[in-house]
């Protein structure tokens, strides 16, 4: 299936958000959203990934 991960199209077979994070090699300190809604870390393993999903994976960055 094709999803959008941080704004870029991605082919993936990941069943859950947790699988996707593992597959994409993200570090431990990230926050996630699926289709514009916050997904807490504790729910990633039970959050399914579906065709067309928009996934955002954010990390700490410089800010003012």
């Amino acid at each position, binding site marked *: 299936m094709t999803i959008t991960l941080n704004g870029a199209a991605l082919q993936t077979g990941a069943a859950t958000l947790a699988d996707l994070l593992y597959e994409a090699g993200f*570090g431990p300190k990230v*926050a*996630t959203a699926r289709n514009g809604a*916050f997904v807490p870390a504790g729910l990633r393993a039970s959050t399914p990934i579906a065709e067309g999903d928009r996934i955002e994976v*954010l*990390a700490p*960055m410089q*800010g*003012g």
Partner: protein
Amino acid sequence: MPVFYGTEVASPLMLGTAQYPSPAVLAEAFRASGAGIATVSLRREQGGGQDFWSLIQGLGTRILPNTAGCHTVKEAVTTAHMARELFGTAWVKLEVIDHTDTLQPDVVGLIEAARILSQDGFQVFPYCTEDLGICSRLLDAGCEVLMPWGAPIGSGMGLNNRYGLRSLRAHFPDVPLVVDAGIGLPSHATQAMEMGYDAVLLNTAVARAGDPAGMARAMALAVQAGRAAFLADPMAPRDMAAPSTPVLGKAFLT
């Protein structure tokens, strides 16, 4: 020292973490500043997030995540939730931006987002204007701190509306007030503190200085001077001259 949501912080200087030439310069500037709070953000992970997390953990300051760049209530609220989990704090510098040129707050959206987040247990630091009515509504929405702008973000123009900032201080004597944005020089920071503001939040003035650590040191001295002056109860200005040397007893020498 200022107290925000029951927590006393080490300094009235709040410093941003963006735009420094290198992580080493950032760390050096923070050491020189003695800042009690570091503002941070969150963006799409592109490989540097884990390193930055290690860096800010080493600064020894409290962390204030922001919702910079959010233009809608939904965006800001979702970003705040992500920040709370990521940074492990209920504090959030709430930005709902209205205009891309001035980066002035969307005050209507700001109030709505502040209410939603306050009800959800967040401790909101709203980046707002100095408008008394708006600030009153932010307090009603649950904010216990206000952060009116001095001037547009990154402009370095200083305090554009000193009358408005003074009025805000006078109307809310017990609310922690922070001038956020627009500070370009140490004298601007001093002016805010002389007015009785509890803290200033700045970033670009230090990060973009030729010597960031030197400017950070200058800002630290500036907030100390301003606070000391406020506590010393400054004299009232006069329109006309008033001799400081006594006239009585002056020799008649003409």
